[in-house]
């Protein structure tokens, strides 16, 4: 393993902070149910781009912060994000080669899994989902993935995050 100097950690933290802010920023009621899971999207991107820096541990910490931020059960988002990060790390070499639309589809699967885990936890603790609209954040996430990917890639190149 070559000794590599990491830099640009501030940019990674900044993108996560922005994602967390987007998670709680007030939006109109119709947009609220379909709010994409920004934290999961940004996490997937960094897992693909820099698997040696951003991994399961970061995912867990982020999940805990998201839990406190949104008032959900402590560990709920953490569990979901840990699984997503794990799969993204496993698949990162394959995913990097995919064209953008194919990546989007894979991201849809990851996001749906993320929501499925949260749904299970909610179901176990007595909060079943009430409608099919519950899954709309995953679809929205798939649609915004190309945007997230492009913006974050430009950021990464611009600030030479490695």
């Amino acid at each position, binding site marked *: 393993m070559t000794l590599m100097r990491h830099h640009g950690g501030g940019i990674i933290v900044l993108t996560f902070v922005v994602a967390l802010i987007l998670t709680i*920023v*007030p939006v109109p009621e119709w947009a609220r149910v379909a709010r994409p899971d920004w934290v999961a999207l940004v996490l997937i991107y960094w897992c693909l781009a820099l698997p040696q820096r951003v991994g399961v541990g970061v995912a867990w910490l982020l999940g805990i*912060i998201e839990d406190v931020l949104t008032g959900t059960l402590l*560990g709920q988002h953490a569990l979901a994000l840990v699984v997503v990060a794990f799969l993204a790390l496993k698949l990162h070499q394959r995913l990097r080669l995919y064209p953008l639309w194919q990546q989007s589809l894979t991201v849809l699967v990851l996001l749906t899994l993320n929501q499925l885990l949260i749904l299970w936890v909610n179901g176990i603790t007595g909060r079943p989902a009430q409608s099919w609209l519950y899954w709309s954040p995953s679809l929205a996430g798939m649609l915004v993935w190309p945007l997230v990917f492009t913006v974050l890639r430009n950021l990464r190149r611009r600030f030479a995050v490695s």
Partner: protein
Amino acid sequence: MVFALLSIVLMTADHRQHHLDQVRSALSVVVYPLQYLVNLPVSAGQWFKESLSTRRQLEEENASLRTKQLLLKAQLQKLSSLEAENLRLRELLQSSFKVGQRVLIAELLSVDLDPYRHEILLNRGTTDHVYRGQPLLDADGVMGQVVQVGPFTSTAMLITDPSDAIPVQVNRNGLRSIAIGTGSIDRLDLPHLPNNADIRKGDLLVTSGLGGRFPPGYPVAVVTSVKQDPGQAFARVSATPLAHLNRSREVLLVWPAGHHHHAPKAAKRPSSATGSDAGRAQAREGDPAGARR
């Protein structure tokens, strides 16, 4: 693997017991800057609106508030005489009843929480002596209760959350029941009323104070529909909350009288007119019969 297990352990601990309240309230300080940042545009907008409003607007507002206050004062006069009479009668009956609760105004932070939970974030925390389970009102009725307290913020669950239930009684005849949240912002259900219960459309539901959590006598909801199906054991009764659950920006945190959870010294009274009543209520706290409800 380790992290997944750790999350599951955490979730169990959080769900089963409340061991993690300390952790959560510590972490809530960490996320407070984020919440503050999100709330900033809204509060800045309000500040601008206030500081840029013209003299005439202010004068008009002042005048309308003045008339409103006059009206309310007139109503309050009647109310305080009724209250005194009520207390006197209750003393005759040797039952205890307390008036003069402490309240504190809290503001909502404009932050979106989980869309499938009816929860709101308030800008008061343990530094203002907010406690878990504290009732929350707005100008028109009961809004909910505090479920999570941090040093500077607290989370409150609205009465329409599916996991919330509030003991109520019909104001007209004192019929007791429990109103359960449905998950839709404008409906509560009363599932435990028998078919022959005396309840009608338009009945006012007030808190009964039986759970010991909400003070008695505050309006909660108005019954909107009563369906009696002879084949079913219970009537299907639903009601609409009176509080503006998704519109209020300022809410009242209440310290029920007799609650010994060190209420704040700086807390405001509802108005100066109830000062004497509050003094009386405190005097009654020394009375052993009065301490029980």
